[in-house]
């Protein structure tokens, strides 16, 4: 397997005249937990959607799992898991039905789905609730379940868009312990968050502002080079720096 999981070169996306992602260049290696930070509207979701084949880039190059985003979006889709920013399970399906569905969509055999479902329900600790409607689950459980559903086909790369927003501190820690396990098992995890303590758990973080990458390093190095004690302060300093973008660009 390729040691480089995701690579982009001047990746750009415009909506009309507005540039949402501006010449993004990053390289993420296998087994890395890569944090994607930035103020609201900085372009994180747009960048992830391009890497997942949901949006076409306006310019630039990108490969995911070695496949080109322009030419091989289908091959990419087989190699990634994705948890969208908006909640992505079906509320009116039970937990078990949701897992069956996502397994089926990835074309897994019923036997394999059954096996992975048991493992997942076990891992999330939902044993007694498998016949419950998903809408009745606390958010923390839902998010772990959504992660599991996005991983049923065992992809090497996983994109998580704000998986812990609105999740309480304990459930967030449980979620992150799963992320750590995944990374330890060699998966590449691409994650966005607005919790700066979670930024510390990433191997490397990138910070975007107004579509541009303005910092990229390990949390330790970032704190050192900006002379701050924690990521919160680093983030605030970076984001508050003059917004380089001119007025309205619509």
């Amino acid at each position, binding site marked *: 397997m390729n040691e480089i999981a995701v690579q982009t070169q001047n990746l750009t996306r415009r909506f009309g005249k507005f540039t949402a992602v501006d010449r993004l260049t990053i390289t993420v290696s296998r087994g890395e937990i890569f944090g994607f930070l930035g103020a609201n509207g900085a372009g994180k979701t747009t960048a992830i959607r391009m890497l997942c084949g949901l949006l076409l880039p306006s310019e630039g190059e990108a490969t995911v799992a070695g496949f080109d985003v322009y030419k091989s979006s289908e091959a990419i889709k087989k190699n990634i898991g994705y948890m969208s920013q908006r909640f992505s399970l079906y509320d009116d399906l039970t937990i078990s039905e949701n897992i069956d569905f996502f397994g089926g969509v990835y074309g897994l055999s019923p036997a394999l789905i059954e096996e992975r479902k048991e493992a997942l329900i076990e891992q999330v600790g939902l044993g007694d609730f498998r016949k419950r409607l998903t809408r009745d689950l*606390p958010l923390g459980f839902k998010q772990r379940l959504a992660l599991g559903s996005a991983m049923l086909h065992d992809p090497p790369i996983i994109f998580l868009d704000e998986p812990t927003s609105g999740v309480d501190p304990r459930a967030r*820690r449980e979620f992150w312990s799963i992320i750590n396990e995944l990374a330890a098992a060699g998966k590449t995890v691409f994650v966005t968050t607005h919790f700066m303590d979670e930024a510390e758990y990433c191997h490397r973080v990138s910070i975007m502002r107004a579509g541009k990458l303005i910092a990229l390093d390990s949390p330790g190095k970032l704190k050192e080079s900006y002379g701050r004690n924690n990521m919160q302060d680093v983030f605030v300093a970076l984001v508050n720096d003059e917004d380089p973008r001119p007025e309205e660009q619509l």
Partner: protein
Amino acid sequence: MHHLIVDNVAKTYGETRALKGVSLAVEKGELFGLIGPDGAGKTTLLRSICTLLVPDSGSITVAGLDISRDVPAIRAILGYMPQRFSLYQDLSVAQNLRFFADLFQVPKHERPERLARLYHFSRLEPFKSRLAGNLSGGMKQKLALSCALIHTPEILVLDEPTFGVDPVSRQEFWEILHQIRAGGTTIVVSTAYMDEADQCDRIALFFEGEIAAMGSPAAVKGAFPYRVYRLSGTALQDLKTFLEGQPEVRGIQLFGDALHVSFSEKPSPETWREWARRGGFPGLRWEEISPSIEDVFLAHMAGETA
């Protein structure tokens, strides 16, 4: 005078007991926070206060009005922002704001100042003419918040207002809440961000439909029975595993690049050095810190204080 009184309120959905007899009282002009894990019953309580749900038992009075009898009167003085408040996706940012200003009959001469303040916090001014449907997730949330804050009701109820909002905007949002409260509005807010709890006058920690602790943030933290140390400078996972084997340790939690470890008794410097040597953590740094709300919360969840 109490502006909001919740007395022994219970609510059950099927088998789930969402609220098991909750009582609290909020002063006029107070900023009151509900802190609790997912599914603890915060939303149920907030909806009941807003007359959207009828509790099975107990009573709630808002400004002296009973939620089961004076629904229109309460709604006239109360502003509510639900957890997933959706805007008109096909209206622009400015049109959404304008619509809510009209809806709440905000006088024309007050609008420019309010809008300026809200645009400052949300940083949405450059995107005024963009359709709400084309905003990013956090931008939508900020617009929703701005719409909820465009008028000033007597009592403001916000359910997880900062969901998905970035740290800088969250700080600015709380400054607005403080300004609003300074004008005499009572605010009840639920949140999953523990740093926001510190911004409230008083908080209630909510667990499984019951209040586990209530008071000013300082009082809640002060009631924490253990001494908390912040440990850093070494491989945290290994340190965690090592300390879990030590009998003195009451609880361990990961906090970003550090561990927070709580003890009944303050360990002596010798003990610390001994641990660093025995566990093989030469770079170990330790310092006693005052517990944060998050420490208290996590300890409650782990059942450490029970």
